[in-house]
């Protein structure tokens, strides 16, 4: 998604942008604005860009990776979240605490969803849905693409 961007940002610039974007998304969340989802998607984009220019072993890199996944989940972009998580978790240098943070983000999302979709949670298929998304995200021919 970010590979096609032609403008190069510095880490400082992206840090500034992401800070503003997070603040905006939190405010929109707080007032239950319909725009909150898109705001979190914007955060996800900045965090993903940051993750691209920062090594996973460094603090900034680890935070950006966890932030990107959390922002994707907050935006409700679960397929994106799964795609990003599988990429970051495949990076050897990513510290264990960051890996745990990513797993925790998914668990928190599942817990939130389980409260909202209790029958689905009881059926055990909520967790299966993440697996399904992980496979589906690697297969562009899957119908439906939007899911």
């Amino acid at each position, binding site marked *: 998604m970010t590979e096609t961007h032609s403008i190069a940002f510095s880490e400082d610039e992206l840090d500034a942008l992401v800070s503003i974007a997070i603040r905006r998304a939190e405010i929109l969340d707080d007032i239950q*604005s*319909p*725009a*909150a*989802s898109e705001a*979190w998607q914007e955060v996800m984009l900045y965090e993903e860009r940051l993750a691209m220019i920062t090594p996973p072993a460094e603090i900034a890199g680890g935070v950006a990776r966890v932030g990107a996944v959390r922002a994707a*989940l*907050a*935006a*409700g*972009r*679960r397929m994106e979240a799964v795609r990003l998580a599988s990429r970051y978790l495949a990076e050897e240098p990513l510290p264990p605490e960051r890996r745990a943070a990513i797993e925790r983000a998914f668990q928190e999302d599942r817990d*939130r*969803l389980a*409260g*909202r*979709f*209790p*029958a*689905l949670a*009881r*059926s*055990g*298929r*909520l967790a*299966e*849905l993440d*697996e*399904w998304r992980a*496979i*589906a995200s690697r*297969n562009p*021919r*899957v*119908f*439906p*693409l*939007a*899911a």
Partner: protein
Amino acid sequence: MTMETVAFYSYKGGVGRTLLVANTAQFLAMSGRRVVALDLDLEAPGLHQKLASRDVLSRAESGALSGAVDELLDALESEPRGDERRNRSLRQRAIEVDLPSGTRGSLILIPAGSAPSHAYWASLERLNNSLRAHRRNGGLAEAVLELQSRIADEFAPEFLLIDSRTGITELGGLATSILADRVVCLTTTAPESAEGTRVVADALRTAPRLSSQRPLRIDFLITRVTSGAARSSNVSRLTEELGGAVTVLPHDAGIAIEKRVFAGWRSGQSAGSEDNDDAGGELFSATLGWIAGSFPGHKQDAEMARRRMVAVHRIWKDLTEGWKRHRGGGASSRRAWPAEQLDERVRFESQDEWRRADIVVYDAPAKEPTAKPLMIIEYVDGEDRDAVARWWLAATQVPVVAVFSNDSDRRLYSRRAAWDSRARHSDRWDLPLPHDFKALSDPTDVSVDTLLDAVRRGHPEYLDRIVTEWVNCSAAVLAGGRPWKPKVAKKIIDELARIDDNEIAYRVLWAASRGSLDRNRWLGDQDDWLDEQVLAELFAPLLWRLPPEASIRLMQGPPRPFGPPANLVAIALLARDVLGLRYDPDATFRKEGQRILERSGRDSESADDMAIYGLLPAFRQTEITFEISSELPPLANCAIQGEEKRPPADINSLVSDRIAAGSLVTTGLLGDYQPHAGRVVLYSSAITQCADKLALRARHVGSVTLIHETIHALAHLGRDLDGRMWMEFALPAADHPLFEPSWFHETLTQYFTYHHILRLRDPALLHAFQAMSARQAPAYRGWERLRDLPIEDARSWFMSVRRGVGAAVTPWHLLSGAIRNED
């Protein structure tokens, strides 16, 4: 038992997907399975239109129906804790679809919502907004999986059937992938439909599955395949491209426009093509076959469900499909039930018992609150049908109950039977139609007396049935066959002949004429001999016995291209059976025409063809025509000429005077045969006056006159068995000033008229003939001396006179009295 989820998908619309979902759901439920049908075609929902009762449809129209859209909204918008929407049972939104009495299965419908009301569109828009704006709360995938899980938890069905969205949509994709254990893909052979289906099917085959899911099974149905195209290269190629299990369903033009399940399976009558009948039946069978084969279960239950659906389908068709237009009976004479007056699967309760009718026929559109049931129809399997009928009659006060166990085993009960504790069924087998409830006090009573009475009261729609009854009573053959009831047959003819109303009498003649289409319905594909028998033994006698206005109106009808018209056959029978002549103007034309052409020496076949049609006008007069005239008869005109233009005595005086003087004549006064035109004329004013003076009925005087003048015409135009004609053997023209009745012609004609009336066995006609004869001129009374002369002798004499050698063989001694009187 685990739930199997089957998604019905089509890339394009209009392939019969929703109807197939509805029919499959019904079949499985009737086979004893627990089924939930879910409408996820949220943008164009319609499953409730196929499955729900009229009450539910009314709720949908008013926006009071909730369904899948509301359920998804509740899941996405409500707070996980403390929100009462979270605790609402799905049952509050589910509709239990009415199934026949005794069905062990169940069918729950979860509609999309109140479609197509504005309230529904508002809910749908809210759902779309919610999915866009609050994705963190969960997306469509979670929401539909939650719905599926709740369905499994609350209803524990064996089958969840999903009507999914067409095209490429997120909801369609979810329904066919993470929700479905099986996908039924419907497509037509149209390239846009077939190609889209193929691509989607390929994607589904490679799509990942949830770890708890079974491998996806995909069935393909190629629908709307027109007759004869099932084996076409298009279908074969598509079958190959799709791969897997492919079934071909035939086309039914009516399917797309019908609203209800049973109606959807009946033939496409409303599409305006009679040819749809077979296609409708074929589609019905093929669809049932596919469902039974695709969802194997308990064979006996499935077979019972299939039998029941087939039987109800046929009953629906019987009730709603109009019969072919009844000749002479008017377009509405056999009007079927309007579909809106029918409803299916209606529950009735009485105290602590209830039953569900398969079909209810109402006296008004069923959705009107004031509509009252006229007829309850239920398919009963394994119960005492008399007891079932007794329950219906007692519980509903409905006039008619029909109980059947298969298509060929129907029983009709009426309110009359309700007073009989044994509730015997009627002899009627076919289901009553709208006119039965208007014309018959008991619509199940179709005895001959009841039907004849209805016809006399102005309901000619029963004529075909009566004619059929006559055939059944009289069509005995040496080899056996139908039970012979000659007394009933004679009663039918006599009662029909008593009909005075000219319009009904005309319809009687139509019903008894050749190839009446509705009669074919009763008798099936009949043999020609039956037609011949009806013509000779029913139509022909009635033609002479019914009011002459009706008979002549029929004889004035337009020529028909196939075969001789019935009236020509009746006249030919009179010529053959009474006069010993042949009368066939077409054959005469061909034979004489051929002789003329041979004499002309033409050698070109095409020239013959042209020439023979050039002869047509010359032969037209050999075809007898008939009319009733309100003009003065020729004898009245003669009086004008003979009395030097003085005004004649009026027709009343003329007839009265002649009756008083015993010089009444038929030819020239009551009727006439005009040899130069081949025309038989009846003079209505003279006939009326004659009847009045003789205390007879005008219709009988008219019939006697019609027979008399027709015999004159046949004596002139008929051919003997050697094929000879004597065109000069004609009556003197009655309009000549010096006209006198020909004693020879009139004596013979009266003799043959008398014998023809004897053969008709009509006492009223015989009485009229004798009463007229008693006041007639001597030339008209000579027949009395021939009364006992064998008809063969009379014919021989008649032939001799036609040949000009009559004097040598004439039984003068029998005629001497008449001649003396004339002298």
